[in-house]
């Protein structure tokens, strides 16, 4: 009898890889929630504190970082002769939650990644840019629930400059993928195999002057 088997392990490896990286994101996110100095968006019009995000709030956050001599993460993308595209400034990354996408789209001057003059080397999570910030959005982005003046959810957008935080691996315990074949996982009858990952690492802010938590609420309701 012939049996066609799905490549279960291949699928598992892919999913476990995503699980590992999202876990790392969550650890880094929580560390930044604790230590990244917060500034509120105050130029929006939703009547809350912090307000919804505006281009002026982005400029203020960048000004704070640049005055503290924080270095940009990304180089400029030069303009090219392509219809509907625009150059992108040198930029800090803005690490936020995917719920922010509609509010970002509403900002005058926001450039979606589709309108970058050069779309090579983009990260999958990049949503677009405005002023000197390129936004990376994730479902594990930071939200502080019921924390605004009107007790709405507050979205934390972290703007790290170069060398503002680091990751320390316990020696020999950086991310490891561990596969146990049936001979090891179930030696009696060799019924199943296992795959998993483990790591021991901590994220740490190295200079609080080079990172900002830009806090905002939503103008576009969920």
């Amino acid at each position, binding site marked *: 009898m012939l049996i066609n088997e799905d490549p279960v392990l291949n699928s598992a490896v892919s999913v476990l890889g995503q699980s590992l990286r999202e876990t790392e994101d969550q*650890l880094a996110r929580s*560390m930044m929630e604790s230590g990244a100095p917060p500034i509120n968006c*105050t130029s929006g019009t939703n009547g809350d504190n*912090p307000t919804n995000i505006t281009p002026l709030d982005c400029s203020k956050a960048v000004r704070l970082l640049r*005055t503290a001599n924080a270095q940009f993460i990304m180089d400029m993308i030069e303009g090219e002769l392509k219809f509907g595209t625009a150059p992108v400034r040198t930029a800090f990354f803005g690490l936020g939650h995917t719920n922010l996408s509609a509010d970002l789209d509403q900002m005058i001057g926001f450039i979606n990644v589709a309108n970058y003059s050069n779309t090579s080397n983009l990260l999958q999570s990049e949503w677009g840019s405005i002023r000197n910030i390129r936004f990376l959005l994730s479902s594990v982005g930071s939200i*502080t629930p019921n924390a605004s003046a009107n*007790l709405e959810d507050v979205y934390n957008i972290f703007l790290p400059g170069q060398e503002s935080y680091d990751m320390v691996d316990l020696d020999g315990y950086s991310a490891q993928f561990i596969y146990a074949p049936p001979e090891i996982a179930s030696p009696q009858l060799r019924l*199943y195999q296992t795959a998993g990952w483990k790591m021991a690492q901590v994220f740490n802010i190295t200079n609080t002057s080079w990172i900002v938590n830009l806090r905002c609420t939503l103008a576009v309701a969920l």
Partner: protein
Amino acid sequence: METQIVTGGFVNVASTPFFIPIRCQIDEFRLVNLTRSGVDAFGIAGNLTSDVISEAEFFPRYMTRGTARVYQNGTVGGDLAPIQVGNLPQNGFYLFDAANQVKGPNIAIASFVPGTTTVWTTSTSHGFVVGDNVRVGDLTTAPELGGLVMTVTAVGSTTQFTTLLNSSNSLTSVGTVYRVGNAFLPQPSLYYPEWRAIASITLANPMVVTLLVRQVYQVGDVVRFQIPTVFGAEQLNTTNNGLPVEFTVIAVNNAVGTQTVTLAYDATALTAFAWPAAASYPFSLPIMEPQGEGNINNFPAYIAPAPLPYGNQNILGFATQNQGQNGILVGAGDGTNADDTGGLITSDVEAWCWRAVCSQQTFP
């Protein structure tokens, strides 16, 4: 899955909830007040007492969070007391998962009294205890205070509590308050150290900063400030040359209700710090930001130099720590099962022992 039985004991701090870190999944928890059972333990003399809870149980799968099945002493006769069984409706047991912290219920604020500290009055029983961190919001005539998290420093009654916020420039307001956590528990953001919002700054030499939420800073820590100009004290901020203006901690009082940090700095010439009125809304928070650690021997005018190596020793006070952990919180109240005021831990220092029946998940 396998079963574990975990046991332990502790001495409580008066009127303060006690957190017991337990890694495994708790299925059953039993707590005994040894002191109120008349048992000598942990150096505390037994004191068999009438009408107080002497034992409590919690079955998380079946019982409401924050409650307890309690055994309360009846009237003591000689060396024994009869036992009565009942339900403690609040300040019982709370399973705690630092990564999934549960906010408390929204409670209506009827008013507050603006002042150098703020007394808040709720419309219904708040159930807070000293040390709880609470967030206020929806303050219709004081929106500038909305969203603040503060530690409860006193509980005047079931409908009154006090925080260190200096609200002198604000108007009283209705609003909403809810419990975020407790100053003695890992904070929702998990990691230490955290920035802290400033309640007030004393223009003195040395400068004393009071914080809205209890902190756990220590002598030798270095901080910097980020204060919006509407608050004053802008001299403390990083200057236009980009170099952070840093301050070394020379004394701390981390007690709930005091929450001060003393810094090696002459603040007598500072612009006064004050929470602004509603007209300045919205604005950012005035914060004190952990920065690193310094050498306290650099400040002989404020603090006696310590002999080497202590003055130069790495205290690692602001080393990053992930404080996430699971466990169970034992609530505090008046030691009875009374509605509103009841709770397990009392205003006395007592000896306790406990037992948890847990499930330990294992992997092949």
